[in-house]
């Protein structure tokens, strides 16, 4: 009721205490906002996509993963043997080929790292490329069609293309870096839409395989050192997490993959195991840092409001004389700090959200392989809630002592 106006006036009057309390709250809510945003971001990326999830199959014990290409045929089937076994909806295989246009004078600019893969899978298995707007999709489809026709074809990201100083239609010769001695003549048939693949390149899987297979003919029947290690990753797509679990079991129980052994993970379980290394840090942020910030807000508020209440003891006593009930005094004091805390939390989280998401475009935070993260939209409501809640908590004691003020004692001290 009318108490609200009185609360606002009291906040305005004790403005130094109010500003100090809100400044502290603003700082701490900022901390909490950042911490919780990182946490909720990590939660999001490790949360399992429930439909159509992608799983990745790699060598179990070694990084980088290097499997014999002979594994590909069965792994893309999810190691299914009987009709009852689950088969993936889709799949692709990746081999990494690094080459340079100038073997004597290698620089970053003249070096190209490419995935050797099935061109058709570019549109069904690659993140983002499976959901392009129609015009970009048509352009990419045209380039893929050219690669299908001509296995020398390569699709190169725009940044890479610029670094090489080449254009679509140009031919390049790459001297193998990891596939030492295997040089590839390539013809640039297209580029990727701007974005995620600006620094990537794709070559035809058949072309690399043929080159590896041809090696013994010119080298006295000896295989290329990477001949039995030319498959780096297999991607499969499964309908749901049950299917994933079954396929993962099929693969791990299969006798084919003994040397080397393989493992099957979803993207998020892969990230999850990567994040295991940071588990203590994340645990600390969630259960120590964030609560510590909240406790500090509560303590600061408690002190600020407590000082205010002590200074106003006489006034509160007068209000009691006029007939204000203890409950109303309690509500007034609690309300003042709730208002202050909520306002501070609001300012803090909204400003952080706007600054980070709209002006900075994310905060660089070197955790796992995420270059930066955004402030969670939820911050817009839990920022004020955190500020208000902590302030409310901190003002319980001062408010209680305010409403317990004994009028007769206050006045007998004065007179």
């Amino acid at each position, binding site marked *: *009721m*009318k*108490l609200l106006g*009185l609360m606002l*006036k*009291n906040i*305005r*009057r004790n403005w130094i205490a109010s500003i100090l309390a809100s400044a502290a709250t603003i700082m701490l809510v900022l901390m909490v906002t950042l911490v919780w945003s990182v946490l909720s971001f990590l939660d999001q990326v490790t949360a399992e996509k429930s439909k159509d999830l992608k799983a990745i199959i790699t060598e179990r014990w070694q990084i980088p993963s290097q499997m014999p290409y002979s594994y590909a045929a069965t792994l893309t089937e999810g190691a299914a043997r009987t009709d009852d076994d689950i088969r993936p909806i889709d799949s692709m295989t990746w081999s990494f080929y690094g080459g340079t246009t100038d073997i004597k004078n290698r620089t970053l600019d003249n070096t190209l790292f490419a995935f050797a893969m099935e061109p058709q899978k570019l549109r069904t298995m690659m993140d983002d490329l499976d959901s392009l707007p129609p015009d970009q999709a048509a352009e990419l489809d045209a380039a893929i069609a050219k690669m299908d026709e001509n296995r020398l074809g390569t699709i190169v990201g725009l940044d890479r293309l610029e670094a090489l100083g080449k254009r679509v239609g140009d031919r390049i010769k790459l001297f193998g870096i990891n596939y030492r001695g295997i040089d590839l003549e390539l013809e640039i048939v297209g580029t990727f839409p701007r974005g995620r693949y600006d620094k990537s390149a794709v070559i035809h899987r058949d072309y690399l395989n043929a080159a590896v297979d041809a090696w013994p003919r010119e080298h006295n029947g000896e295989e290329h050192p990477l001949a039995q290690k030319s498959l780096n990753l297999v991607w499969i797509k499964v309908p749901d997490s049950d299917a994933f679990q079954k396929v993962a079991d099929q693969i791990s129980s299969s006798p084919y993959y003994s040397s080397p052994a393989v493992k099957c993970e979803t993207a998020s379980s892969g990230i999850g195991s990567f994040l295991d290394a940071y588990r203590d840090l994340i645990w600390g942020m969630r259960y120590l840092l964030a609560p510590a910030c909240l406790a500090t807000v509560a303590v600061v508020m408690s002190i600020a409001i407590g000082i205010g209440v002590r200074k106003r003891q*006489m*006034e509160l006593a*007068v*209000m*009691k*004389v*006029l*007939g*204000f*009930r*203890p*409950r109303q005094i309690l509500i007034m004091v609690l309300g003042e700090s709730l208002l202050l805390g909520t306002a501070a939390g609001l300012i803090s989280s909204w400003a952080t959200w706007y600054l980070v998401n709209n002006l900075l475009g994310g905060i660089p935070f070197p955790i796992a392989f995420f270059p930066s993260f955004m402030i969670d939209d939820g911050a817009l409501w839990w920022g004020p809630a955190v500020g208000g809640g902590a302030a409310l908590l901190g003002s319980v004691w001062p408010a209680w002592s305010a409403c317990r003020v004994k*009028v*007769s004692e206050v*006045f*007998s001290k*004065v*007179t």
Partner: protein
Amino acid sequence: MGHDNTILRVTDVHKYFRRGSERVDVLSGLNLEVGEGEFFGLMGPSGSGKTTLLNLIAGLDVPSEGEVWVGSNCISRMSESQLATWRTRNIGFVFQFYHLLPVLSAFENVELPLLLLPLSAGQRRQQVETALDLVGLKDRMWHRPGQLSGGQQQRVGIARAIVTDPLLIVADEPTGDLDAKSAVEILDLLEELRSGLEKTIIMVTHDPRAARRCDRVRHLDKGQVVDGSALQGEHVEEHVG
């Protein structure tokens, strides 16, 4: 005393405080009656228990023994929250140091007790304006206490005390902090409330000049009310002048 229209009756009241293990007896077997429309003065040395008695009368504290009746209510048996509600309608308290809320304007200070009653904003405004008019401060309505002189602040304090039209006006040394001229103005105002509005006023004072304005003066001594000296006689002369 034998007032037919007794509005305050204090019977055999004891009040003691505890200081550690020690018991401090402030009031011991005190009896007092005040009639409706009376301007009653209470004097006594510092520490004699005047404020303690006023607190009991105003329902700010309860007696250790005995009863306090105001009108038809025995307030010494009420709970703290009953007393709070009762105070709003029945007691107007005037303080020595005014005790206006510094954040509020004169108008808002006077309005404060009305917020506790079921009144519309319009009704509140009307009552506040009437009260401020009565104390002659209608033109200072929007001033803050800090922008008013001591005498003016006390007049706002009196407006706040009468705005709910209470049964009793209780004033604890209302002129104690004022210069002589302002004190006279405040006493004139209180007298006007008594004669014009037939208010019952109970005033504690140290000042004999203030006491002379009262219809009746009693002294507090050794925890009991005793008759005053010849103040009653002088009062008549003073009243005319």
